[in-house]
C-alpha cells in the first residue's frame, strides 16, 4: 500500500476533523506525525490525561546551544494531537517523524508549529490578491474553516499551489528528507495496510515526491545532550508568537469551533466580547448588538459563508461598536500584535479571541530534576507558603533564603516579588521584604527554567549569562549586582569583561557614574555578598574611572543648569581614588591634574568646573578657592558652580570656613534682579548640605558679619513668606517715594 498524506495547517480545527475522519476510515497500521522523533519512546507521557493546551518543551544542554529552547504546542483541536489520540484509539502504531527540536535545522525557531509558508510570502500574497482577502488568515478562514466539509482535495490543491515553485530553505530540506525516510520505512513495514502521514501542508508535496523511491530502513533518531519535557501551555502564549514564529491566531475561537461548531462559536465570540466590554464599563446597547448581528450575517452572505466566520463576526462588531476614528487598523486585517493606545473594543475583541484557557499537566508527568529539587528546597526554607517574608541579610541563614529567592526571581518564576531591599552595590540597605504567592504556573516555569541548568544556582547563572550579550552598560551593572544577590561567583568574569568593553566604548557620563558607584559599592563594602576586594570588580573600577576622566575633560558647553547625574559620576571617581587606590592604574596626581585643568577651563560647564575644583580639593590639592569663587560670581553661573563644588567637596568647604565669607560678600553685592536670577541654582547648591550643616553655615555667616543672634532662627522663619514679601514690597515703595521726593 502507499501512504495517505494529509497536509495540514497546524492548529486548524478543519484539518483536525479531516485527520480524525481519515484515520477512523482507513484504520492504518502506522500514523506518522510531524513532531520531535526523540520523544517517540515517551508518547505515553503525552496521553496521561492532561488538560490541554500543553507543549513539549525542548532545549539543548550542550555546549554549542544550536536550537536553544523551542516549543511544540498542542491544543484539543491540533491536527497532530487528534492524529495521536485517534491513531492510538484505532490501534495504529503512532510515531513522530520530524527531527528533534535541538537539531540545527530548527536554528532560530522557537515554535515548531509555526506556519512554514509564511517564510515564502510571495505566493500567499498573490493568493490573497486573487481572492480579495486581507491576509493569509482571512483567506484560510474563507477557503477551509468556513466550509469544513470535504476539504481534502481543496487542501491538497492549496498546498500544491503554495509550495509550487518555491524551493525550501536548508533547514526545511533537511527535515523533509528525514521525514521521507520514516514514511518510506513505514510504508514498507505496513505491508498491505495503509499508513497515514500528518504533516504541515507546506512539506506535503515535497514529501510525496521523496517517498516514491529510496531506502526503507527505519531511520536512526539523533541524540544529544538536549532534553524534552512536557509543560503546561496557555492560549495566550499560543497566540503570542509573532513574525515567522506565528501560527493560526485566535485559539479560543477555534477551540469553540472545534467543540461547538461554527454557528455557536460565532455567538460565543459576540457574547464574550460584549461581556468583557460591559465588565470594563463600556456601553454596549441592544441596538448595537442587533446592528452587529445584522452586519455579520450580511458579511457572511456577501463572502459566501453559510455561518458567519471569524472575520465576519469581528467586522460586524467593529462596525457596530466603534463610533469614532481608529488609530490603527483592526488587528485581524494585518498580522501582528495590537499597538498601544488601541480602541477598547479592539482590545477586548483580541482578548476574547485568545481567551485565557490554561493547560494543566497530569500529576504523574515526569519533570526535570530541577523542579523537585527547587520545590523541596522551598519547603525546607519555609518559602513555599503565601505571605510576606522579612529577611535580615547579615544573618547567614536568612542570606541563604534570600539567595534562593533571588535565583528564582532572575529565572522569572512567578510568585516571588521583592518589595524592598538593596537596589545597587552603593545602596546601604541590609534587609529585604518579599511577597510570596504560590501559583499553578510555577511548575511550568520551573520546567522551562531547567533549560538553563540542572541546579537552581546553575540555572540562575545561565539565565543571567543569557542576558549578557544584548545588555546595555547599566543593564550589565544590574546583572553583576543580580549575580551578587544570587550568590553566583562563576560568571562574573564574563560580565566584567563585557562590561569593561562597553565602558571603554561608553559615552554617557551619567550612566558610567552609576556603574562606577554600584561596582565600587560592591568592591568596598559587600562582605555580605562576598564580593569585597574582588579583583575582577577592581578591573571594572579602573576602566570606568579612566573613561569618566577622559570624557569629562572633553565636555564643553556654556552656562547650563547643574547636572546631578554627572556630578554623581565625579563623586564616584573621588571615592574610587580615595578608597580603591590599589586597583587604579591612574595615579592620584594625574587625577588631580585632570581636575585642575577642568576647573580652570573656561569652556567647561560651570557645574563641572566647580565639581572638578572640589575633586582636586578632596584629593589633597589646596586650591585658591576664593579666587575661583570670584571668577564664577556671575549670577547665572554661581549657583551651578557651587552645586558642583558642594556635591564633591562638601566636607572640605565646611572645614575651611573661608568660602562662606566670600560667598556672603558676593551675594550681598548682587542687585535684587541679579539675586533673583541666581536664587534657584543657589537653593539647589545648598541642598547638598543636610540641615545640621546648614546651621553651621548660618553660624559662619553671622560670625562673618559680626552679628549676634541664633543661627537656628535664621534657618527656621516663623513668619509667613507672604508677609515677608509684602513687607519687602512696602519697603521698596517707601524707598521709591523717598527718592521721588528728593528725601533719600
Amino acid at each position, binding site marked *: 500500500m502507499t501512504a495517505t498524506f494529509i497536509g495540514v495547517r497546524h492548529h486548524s480545527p478543519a484539518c483536525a476533523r479531516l485527520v480524525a475522519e481519515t484515520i477512523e476510515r482507513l484504520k492504518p497500521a502506522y500514523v506518522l506525525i510531524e513532531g520531535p522523533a526523540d520523544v517517540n519512546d515517551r508518547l505515553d507521557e503525552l496521553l496521561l490525561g492532561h488538560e490541554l493546551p500543553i507543549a513539549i518543551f525542548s532545549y539543548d544542554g550542550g555546549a554549542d546551544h544550536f536550537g536553544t529552547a523551542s516549543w511544540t504546542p498542542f491544543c484539543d483541536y491540533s491536527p497532530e494531537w487528534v492524529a495521536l489520540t485517534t491513531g492510538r484509539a484505532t490501534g495504529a502504531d503512532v510515531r513522530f517523524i520530524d527531527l528533534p527540536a535541538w537539531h540545527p535545522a530548527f536554528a532560530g525557531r522557537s515554535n515548531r508549529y509555526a506556519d512554514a509558508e509564511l517564510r515564502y510570502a510571495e505566493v500567499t500574497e498573490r493568493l490573497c490578491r486573487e481572492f480579495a482577502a486581507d491576509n493569509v488568515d482571512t483567506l484560510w478562514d474563507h477557503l477551509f474553516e468556513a466550509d469544513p466539509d470535504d476539504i481534502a482535495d481543496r487542501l491538497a490543491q492549496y498546498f500544491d499551489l503554495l509550495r509550487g515553485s518555491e524551493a525550501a530553505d536548508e533547514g526545511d530540506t533537511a527535515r523533509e528528507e528525514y521525514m521521507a525516510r520514516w514514511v518510506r520505512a513505514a510504508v514498507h513495514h505496513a505491508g498491505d495496510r495503509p499508513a497515514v502521514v500528518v504533516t504541515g501542508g507546506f512539506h506535503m508535496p515535497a514529501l510525496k515526491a521523496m517517498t516514491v523511491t529510496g531506502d526503507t530502513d527505519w531511520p536512526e533518531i539523533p541524540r544529544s545532550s538536549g532534553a524534552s519535557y512536557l509543560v503546561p501551555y496557555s492560549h495566550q502564549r499560543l497566540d503570542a508568537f509573532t513574525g515567522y514564529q506565528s501560527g493560526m491566531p485566535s485559539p479560543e475561537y477555534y477551540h469553540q469551533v472545534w467543540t461547538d461548531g461554527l454557528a455557536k462559536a460565532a455567538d460565543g465570540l459576540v457574547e464574550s466580547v460584549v461581556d468583557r466590554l460591559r465588565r470594563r464599563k463600556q456601553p454596549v446597547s441592544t441596538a448595537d448588538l442587533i446592528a452587529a448581528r445584522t*452586519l455579520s450575517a450580511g*458579511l457572511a*452572505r*456577501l463572502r459566501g459563508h453559510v455561518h458567519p466566520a471569524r472575520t465576519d463576526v469581528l467586522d460586524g462588531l467593529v*462596525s457596530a461598536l466603534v463610533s469614532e476614528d481608529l488609530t490603527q487598523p483592526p488587528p485581524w*486585517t494585518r498580522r501582528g500584535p495590537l499597538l498601544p493606545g488601541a480602541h477598547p473594543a479592539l482590545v477586548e475583541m483580541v482578548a476574547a479571541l485568545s481567551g485565557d484557557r490554561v493547560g494543566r499537566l497530569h500529576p504523574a508527568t515526569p519533570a526535570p530534576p530541577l523542579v523537585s529539587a527547587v520545590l523541596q528546597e522551598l519547603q525546607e526554607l519555609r518559602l513555599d507558603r503565601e505571605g510576606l517574608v522579612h529577611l535580615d541579610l547579615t544573618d547567614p541563614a536568612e542570606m541563604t533564603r534570600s539567595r534562593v529567592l533571588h535565583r528564582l526571581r532572575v529565572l522569572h518564576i512567578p510568585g516571588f516579588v521583592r518589595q524592598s531591599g538593596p537596589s545597587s552595590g552603593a545602596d546601604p540597605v541590609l534587609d529585604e521584604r518579599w511577597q510570596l504567592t504560590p501559583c499553578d504556573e510555577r511548575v511550568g516555569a520551573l520546567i522551562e527554567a531547567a533549560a538553563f541548568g540542572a541546579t537552581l544556582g546553575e540555572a540562575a547563572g545561565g539565565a543571567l549569562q543569557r542576558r549578557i550579550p544584548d545588555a546595555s552598560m547599566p543593564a550589565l551593572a544590574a546583572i553583576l549586582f543580580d549575580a551578587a544577590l544570587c550568590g553566583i561567583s562563576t560568571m562574573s568574569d564574563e560580565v566584567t569583561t563585557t562590561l569593561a568593553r562597553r565602558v571603554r566604548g561608553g559615552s554617557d557620563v551619567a550612566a558610567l557614574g552609576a556603574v562606577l558607584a554600584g561596582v565600587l559599592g560592591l568592591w568596598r563594602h559587600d562582605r555580605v555578598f562576598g564580593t569585597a576586594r574582588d579583583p575582577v570588580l577592581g578591573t571594572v573600577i579602573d576602566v570606568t574611572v579612566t573613561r569618566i576622566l577622559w570624557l569629562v575633560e572633553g565636555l564643553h558647553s556654556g552656562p547650563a543648569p547643574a547636572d546631578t547625574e554627572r556630578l554623581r559620576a565625579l563623586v564616584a571617581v573621588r571615592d574610587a581614588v580615595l578608597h580603591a587606590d590599589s586597583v587604579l592604574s591612574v595615579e592620584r596626581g594625574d587625577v588631580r591634574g585632570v581636575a585642575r585643568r577642568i576647573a580652570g577651563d573656561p569652556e567647561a560647564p560651570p557645574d563641572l568646573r566647580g565639581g572638578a575644583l572640589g575633586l582636586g580639593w578632596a584629593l589633597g590639592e589646596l586650591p585658591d578657592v576664593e579666587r575661583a569663587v570670584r571668577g564664577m560670581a556671575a549670577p547665572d553661573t554661581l549657583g551651578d558652580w557651587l552645586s558642583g563644588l558642594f556635591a564633591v567637596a562638601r566636607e572640605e568647604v565646611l572645614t575651611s570656613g573661608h568660602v562662606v565669607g566670600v560667598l556672603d560678600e558676593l551675594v550681598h553685592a548682587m542687585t535684587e534682579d541679579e539675586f533673583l536670577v541666581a536664587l534657584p541654582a543657589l537653593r539647589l547648591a545648598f541642598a547638598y548640605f543636610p540641615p545640621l550643616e546648614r546651621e553651621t553655615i548660618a553660624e559662619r555667616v553671622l560670625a562673618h558679619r559680626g552679628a549676634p543672634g541664633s543661627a537656628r532662627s535664621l534657618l527656621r522663619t516663623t513668619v509667613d513668606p507672604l508677609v515677608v514679601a509684602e513687607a519687602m514690597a512696602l519697603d521698596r515703595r517707601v524707598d521709591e517715594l523717598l527718592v521721588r521726593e528728593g528725601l533719600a
Partner: protein
Amino acid sequence: MSDNTSLQRPPAEIRFADELKRLRADDSGPRPPGWAMSLQAARRFIVGDPARDISRKFVGDPSLVDRALVTLATSRGLMLVGEPGTAKSLLSELIAAAVSGESTLTIQGGAATTEDQIKYSWNYALLVAEGPSTRSLVPAPMLRGMAEGRIVRFEEITRCPLEVQDSLLSLLSERVVAIPELTGPDGMVFAKAGFNVIATANTRDRGVNEMSAALKRRFNFETVFPIPDFQTELSLVEQEAGKLLAQSGVGLPPRRDVLEVLVRTFRDLRDGNGSDRLSTVMSTAEAVSVAHAVGLRGWFLRGEEGTPADVVECLAGTAAKDNADDLARLRRYLEQHASRRKGEQWQALHQARHLLPG
C-alpha cells in the same frame, strides 16, 4: 456623452461605464432593494477581479469595502474617516457609482453649508408668481436621493456647523422630509428603497468627536488608513501620476527610480521613520500631485522626465505649507537620511538639498 473626453474629471460612472455595464450584465446575485447591482458585483467593481478584467480601484483592505457595502444595505449610514488624502472620497464615489449607478448626488460640507443645500430651496421667481408648488421647489441632493432611492454623498461632514449636521437626524431615522409649504401628498417625501448616506470626515480638520452622539449612532464608522505596503503605494502613484501627466500633454511617463525616491521620502516623513514626523499630511494623494508636478517641470522646462532636484523643489511647497518646523524637518531629512541611502537618485536628492528655500 460624446464630449466626455473633454471633461477634466468625469465621474466614476462615466469613467468606468464599460466595467459597470459588464458587471450588471452577468450579475446573478440577489440585489438589495433599490440597488443597481448585487453586493458581490459592487465588491468586484471596487476591489477588482482580474478574471473578468475589472480593474482594482481601491487598494485598501478588501474587508473595509465589505463592511462599507453591508452597512449601506442596512439602515445605518456609512461614515468614512481618516487622514486627508487616504482616498475616502474616491471610495465613496466608487460605492455610489456601483450601488446607485450615479455618484453625483453630492453635498460638499463647509462652514457655509446651510440646510437649503441639503434638503431643498425655492425658485423664488416661480414661488412669487405661482406660490409653493412642486414646480417652484428646487430639490437639493438629499431630497433627490430620498425620492429616487439613491446614495447621497456628504463630503467633509464635520466641517459643517453642528446644527446643520443635526438636520440629518430626522432624515436618517424617520426617512422622510416634510415640506410644510406644500399640501397634500407632496408635503411629505418618503425615502425610497436604495437611499442611504455616505459621509466622509477627515481627522485633521475637526475630528468626529464634536459630532452629536445622536448623529454618530446613525452611522457606522470606517477608518481608512494610509497604504501600508510600499510597492502598492509606489505602483499606485506611478499609475495615477502617469494618467495625470498624459492628460496634461506630457509625452514621457515618470521615471520609476525617481518615483521610488519620492514615495519612500513621503512614507518616511509620514511615519517619522528615523526622523521627525511632519505635521503636514504626507498622503498618497499628495505624492501623486508632487509626482505630477515633477513630471510637468521636467517636460515643459527641459523636455525630460523630471529629476530628484524637481522633487526637492516641489516638496518644499508640499511639506512646508503652513509650518516652518516642517521645513526644518525636511531639510534635516535630506541632509542626514537621504545621504545614507544607496542609489544614484538618492544621492541626487541629497545634492539638491540646497534648493529648499530659506
